[in-house]
């Protein structure tokens, strides 16, 4: 009984410690962000690494998600004789939910893991320690540029995902199935609101960008400096990042669209 209570206490304490050090890490990022703004070249380099290299997977996934939405939406809507609403269905589901969420999940898998592995290996190879010896702050030099690059890249990738998805839905719905083109776009334009739908989608993608990048950097920075530790940290980035994105999405949707 006592051992059981002790186990609960230890689990609570360790999860609180984890949460606390994660929050402190977030504070540290923000506090030392001035350096990144003074050296934009470092951020640009990381945007190239995080954003440009994720473009292909984001664009291809967005297109296929759009294709599937077009097909599935058509088969469902056609039962109710309202296949003109296909454009609205595709655009709303992409801009509000799928764009930010699927992009964030792919982003965690594509960019998050590489960030964690990179920083974990830097730590394991004692490169971060070497920087400190040379009086270079590894947080300012390595972590902060990556943090801001993730925040910049994520909303852009989500917007591209949504655009390509809508074009994919248009390709399947209008070009292949033959839904009326005018109705497709006009229903979409009547039903999608710039502030309520698109701006809220952008806000979501910024929040997801912060969350995923921060988790990836934190896992890399706090990984045990062994091959096994880095591999565990990489796995945790994907698992925790994806779960956080899905949980945050539920919260944000409830706040924004209720």
């Amino acid at each position: 009984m006592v051992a059981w209570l002790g186990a609960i206490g230890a689990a609570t304490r360790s999860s609180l410690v984890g949460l606390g050090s994660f929050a402190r890490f977030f504070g540290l990022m923000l506090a030392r962000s001035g350096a990144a703004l003074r050296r934009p070249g470092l951020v640009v380099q990381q945007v190239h690494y995080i954003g440009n290299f994720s473009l292909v997977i984001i664009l291809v996934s967005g297109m296929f998600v759009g294709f599937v939405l077009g097909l599935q939406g058509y088969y469902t809507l056609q039962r109710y004789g309202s296949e003109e609403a296909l454009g609205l269905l595709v655009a709303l589901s992409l801009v509000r939910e799928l764009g930010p969420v699927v992009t964030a999940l792919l982003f965690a898998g594509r960019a998050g893991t590489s960030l964690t592995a990179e920083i974990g290996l830097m730590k394991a190879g004692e490169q971060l320690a070497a920087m400190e010896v040379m009086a270079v702050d590894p947080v300012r030099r390595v972590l902060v540029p990556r943090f801001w690059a993730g925040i910049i890249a994520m909303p852009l990738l989500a917007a591209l995902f949504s655009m390509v998805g809508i074009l994919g839905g248009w390709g399947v719905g209008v070009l292949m199935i033959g839904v009326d083109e005018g109705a497709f776009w006009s229903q979409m334009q009547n039903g999608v609101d710039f502030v309520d739908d698109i701006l809220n989608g952008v806000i979501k993608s910024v929040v997801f960008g912060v969350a995923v990048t921060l988790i990836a950097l934190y896992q890399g920075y706090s990984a045990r400096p062994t091959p096994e530790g880095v591999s565990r940290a990489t796995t945790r980035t994907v698992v925790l990042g994806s779960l956080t994105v899905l949980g945050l999405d539920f919260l944000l949707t409830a706040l924004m669209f209720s």
Partner: protein
Amino acid sequence: MSRDKVDVWVGLFVVLGAIALVFLALKAANLGTFSMGSTYSLTARFDNIGGLKVRAPIKSAGVVVGRVSAIGFDDQMYQGIVTLDIQSQYVFPTDSSAKILTSGLLGEQYIGLEPGGEEENFADGNTIRYTQSAVVLENLISQFLYGKAAEGASAPASN
């Protein structure tokens, strides 16, 4: 890769992302025509607004001339108060009438403006006097059934 090349690729990426946002704003949300030009507002009272929603289009002769900007309720008269934003380049006579119509059988509801014959035109803040409420399908069906029943009852008597 050299710094300049990286800058070019990142610039391309950022421009692409910005284009995607503009595409979403203009092509998906129709921001261009929505905010275009100045508008003047009219109010109209309806006994029943049906499923009318804010931002529903206002059409005259089938052409969109404005949008519904607000819907309220008057608890003295028990009527719905609809505020209409009409684009400034379109003017309507003061005896024009507003109807709540439905596009298609199950489509969205919109307001149809039918111009009258008065010399004067509506100014900002005026009220549309002649209105026709939304058709409620249930009322229509019950009227139809009631009419059928009355017909059935009177038919044997006339024979």
